[in-house]
């Protein structure tokens, strides 16, 4: 499989095809039926490591090993996996890479929205064929879940709680009976070994459709936390920014480390409502200020620096982005941000440049 260079964002199984192949080559542990890799190798793929033949596997997820182990162990049982967390905690990212490593295919994806219909998780019809020939297997349009069942692959459902409840409940039969009845054809699809579902859901959103307990019971839940330490978060941001920068053809920025550290510090302080030294209490803005947002702030800062600046990431390149990420509610968050600038940023001697830039950006 070669990567089409014009594709903006290649799938995980394409981008990391080399690593996956190396893992499959060196992996001598037992593999569950229809798995491309052993569970142990899947964990290595996600968390990184050096293989016996010297291939370096880059870490995809920076965080607790035990969480990933629980997630992979869940997939080896026939329980579905529910990844839960606030926005931007790499739920979809983990889900994509798990599917890529287990099944070699991360594209069996259903995006949950308020408008997702039952066809998206079961099957639909090609109406032209249906009218011309009547109900037949040829007229059936399988959903990604159904394809996963037929081929023994992992299907992914993004934002499960955004789907209407009746659509969610269509999954119950699939997950408990491992079969999908097609009453129109008087037949059914039975799942093959290797089939499973990875769903992601966000526990911060309002107005979502809570899972029914019947469905919830079919999932093992793994909560992905926000990074526990500043160093860990800086590492995540740096790594993702570098990857994104490559994909967007941005030249690697020099001296970005300093600004990344600052962005992460600001995000962490506002998220926790207290400064890193624990001395000043802060108001907490309404937004989630996730790591993903920090990454996008730095990436857009890099773009600014590359195209309009001298290629060095400076305070002025990130200031506007940070303000945009913090101020979601024009009244309350603007106060929060102004307070933060005046009480914390201004007091820090080495943050002068940032203070000025933030004031210029409308702080």
């Amino acid at each position: 499989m070669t990567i089409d260079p014009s594709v903006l964002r290649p799938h995980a199984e394409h981008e990391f095809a080399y690593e996956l192949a190396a893992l499959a080559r060196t992996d001598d542990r037992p593999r569950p039926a229809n798995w491309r890799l052993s569970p142990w190798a899947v964990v290595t793929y996600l968390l990184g490591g050096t293989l016996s033949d010297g291939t370096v596997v880059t870490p995809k997820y920076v965080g607790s090993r035990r969480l990933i182990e629980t997630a992979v162990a869940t997939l080896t049982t026939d329980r579905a996996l529910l990844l839960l967390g606030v926005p931007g905690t790499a739920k979809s990212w983990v889900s994509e890479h798990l599917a890529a490593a287990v099944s070699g295919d991360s594209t069996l994806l259903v995006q949950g929205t308020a408008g997702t219909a039952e066809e998206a998780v079961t099957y639909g019809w090609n109406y032209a064929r249906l009218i011309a020939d009547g109900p037949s297997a040829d007229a059936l349009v399988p959903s990604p879940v159904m394809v996963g069942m037929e081929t023994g692959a992992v299907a992914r459902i993004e934002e499960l709680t955004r789907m209407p409840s009746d659509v969610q409940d269509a999954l119950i039969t699939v997950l408990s009976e491992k079969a999908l009845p097609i009453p129109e054809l008087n037949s059914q699809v039975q799942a093959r070994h290797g089939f499973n579902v990875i769903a992601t859901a966000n526990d911060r959103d309002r107005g979502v459709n809570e899972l029914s307990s019947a469905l919830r019971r079919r999932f093992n839940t793994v909560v992905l936390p926000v990074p526990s330490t500043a160093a860990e978060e800086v590492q995540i941001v740096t790594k993702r920014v570098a990857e994104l920068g490559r994909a967007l053809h941005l030249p690697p920025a020099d001296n970005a480390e300093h600004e990344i550290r600052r962005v992460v510090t600001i995000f962490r302080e506002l998220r926790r409502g207290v400064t890193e030294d624990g001395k000043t209490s802060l108001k907490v803005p309404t937004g989630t200020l996730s790591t993903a947002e920090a990454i996008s702030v730095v990436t857009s800062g890099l773009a600014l620096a590359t195209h309009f600046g001298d290629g060095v990431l400076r305070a002025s390149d990130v200031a506007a982005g940070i303000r945009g990420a913090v101020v979601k509610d024009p009244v309350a968050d603007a106060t929060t941000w102004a307070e933060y600038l005046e009480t914390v940023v201004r007091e820090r001697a080495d943050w002068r440049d940032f203070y000025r830039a933030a004031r210029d950006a409308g702080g």
Partner: protein
Amino acid sequence: MPSNERLAVYGIRHHGPGSARAVREAIDRHRPDVVLIEGPPEADGLVQWVGPGLVPPVAVLSYDVARPSHAAFWPFAVFSPEWQALSWAVEHHREVRFVDLPAANVLAAPAVGRGDTGPVAPDLFAAPGPDETAEPDETPGPVQPPGLEAGRANPSGAAEGDPERDQPGAAELLGEALGSSSEPDPIRGDPIAVLARTAGYDDPERWWDDVVESRRGIDPFDAITEAMAELRAHAPPPVSVSEQAEETRREAHMRQKLRAALRDHERVAVVCGAWHAPVLAGRLGPASTDQALLRRMPRVKVATTWVPWTHSRLAFSSGYGAGVHSPGWYQHLFTATDSVIERWFTEVARVLRRHDLPVSSAHAIEATRLADGLAVLRGRPMPGLEEVQEAALAVMCDGNATTLRLVTKDVVVGEELGAVPDGAPTVPLDADLRAEARSARLPLAPQSKDVVLDLRKDIDRRKSRLLNRARILGINWGVTQQIGGLGTFKEGWQIRWRPDFAVAIVVASAWGTTVASAAAARLVDSPGGLPDVTGRVERALVADLPHTLPPLLAALDDRAAHESDVAVLMEALPALVRAQRYGTVRGTDTSLLVSVTDALLARITAALPAALGGLSPEAAVGVRGHVDAVTAAVGLLGDVDRAAWHAALRRVLTRSEVPGLLAGRLTRTLLDAGELAADEARASVGRALSHRPTVADRAAFAEGFLSASALLLIHDPTILGVVDAWVSGLSADDFVEVLPVLRRAFGSFNQPERRAIADAAARLGRAMADQPPTEDLPYLDMAEAMATVRLLLRGRDDAA
């Protein structure tokens, strides 16, 4: 170790179920004539109690007879190797000797001039106290008496003793405790954990299972002794000289006891911490050196007894350093013979169901499968605590860490309570309680007796204090009684000593060795929600335990800050205000309390207007009670607080959506407080009765306004007129609708009051025709005198 040798040394991990099982098997093979166990020799006399009546977890307790608060504990769980060795010996009628340094010497360790060693923990139980700065590490409990480790001093200066009791040395103990916070030594504490960590295991028990247990055929203890010899050769010496000396002396003592045992008996087994195994297993060396080491050690007179222990006290999480993280798990590992993981998850499911969480057998099955899967993934032969906890989190708790904490608390730690047979020697708490009772001149008599205490007298204050402290400990020796009079300095008690308090005392002895320290420790242990914390604050004051106030008030402030339900805040306030008054009567410093009360009142007044708007009529009934209680309580506070409260009530009244009942009651409250002029009140009653949206709401307003007391209606003809006009203006249907409400409002008045209202209403009808009734005028002029008379006649219920 071949079982034909005379001497077998078992180096064990304290509270390690793996060690316990191995020791039991090894001893059974070796069949020694005498079993030597690391523990205070004073406990030799306690072996006779080992039997059906003594149910672990229990602890050997040694205390200085002169100062019961000077005590040390050696806890045993069923999965402790020492306990297994002990029960084997008792079952097979072999002699048991405890070989560690005598408690008499340990407890005599001079506190002065040895800051780094610290005193013997005056009260280990104070550990759950608020201030765990000097918290010790995982040093093994049963063997190393607290006095021997640096930093093992009482971790909670606050909960220790009672400063007022003038305990000799209490102050210096406190100073010592705070000063001796040097890091304890993990290698000496749990050397097997160090080996396990070196091998990459985070749970030493799993290392034991994987490495020691699975190698059948080799005696694990030889390997352990060898490993320890290696470890000892390379480990750094203890940080302080005195610690080094203690260790040398303890091992010298053990060697001496071993020599004696080898003289007396053919086959000898020694069960001791793995760290000490090498010095006992090899050549013992010349006895004279050891003798010299042990010469001229200070001694005190000690008493030793069994006390019941609990799993939570064994657990590390209670702050008692000698324990294990997961006694419940260890107990399960030790007792479950087959289907270990399945049984475990069944138990977890049962506990979660008890907390009303929907957990089915299917969950237990899936959790077992996930735990097994995780173990395979991590290349482990069997799931360990880590795997089962992670599986429980993912499958049974929906990833919710709070739910998992329930599992940890109830299953992983567990709440097993040990038992001690009747007739075993008494605990120091009992001795202390009796001494206190004597000095307070309270007889421990089984006859019921009513007493009225005058808190202005010193002796009565002591009595009250003791009774209240006993009550905190669950010893309901005295029951408070309502007594007449408004004074706060009198307290009525019904006192009766029941023999079964002995049990309560033993249970309470788990909290401390003196009444004061035990009550304090009990009081600050795991406070619950806001009402619970305020209750504790009140109890802390009446029991005169002022040093528990800072942590309790901190907890209170914390709870209040996170409490969004203003009703809960209002519920908490009266108790605090009462507490202030008690405090003043009893001469305790309540300045801290005042500031917390003020903060609480500020939170209430800020949240009140928003909270009372849009309440349903049913909810309004409950809130009315709270508002009345706060009004009464605020009446006891200063003018500033009162003004703030009344201002808040006024703000509430400006909102339109306040339910009728509350609006009526608040109008009345403000009128009674003189915050609302009579004219203004009449106008607003008139407005409410004509303009409120529904008839029911108007009736509710009338109920709220009128039900507080009848006197207003009797003596203010205008208000009566307004009400009268409203009632007579009701249509027949509306009248039927409001009748129950009005009946409720008037039903709270007594017969003469109702008659007086009826008379006034009749007069009102007559008076409509001509002049105002003359007899009203004197009543109005006499309002103040009337209020006084009312107060005298009816007590405080309408003092406002």
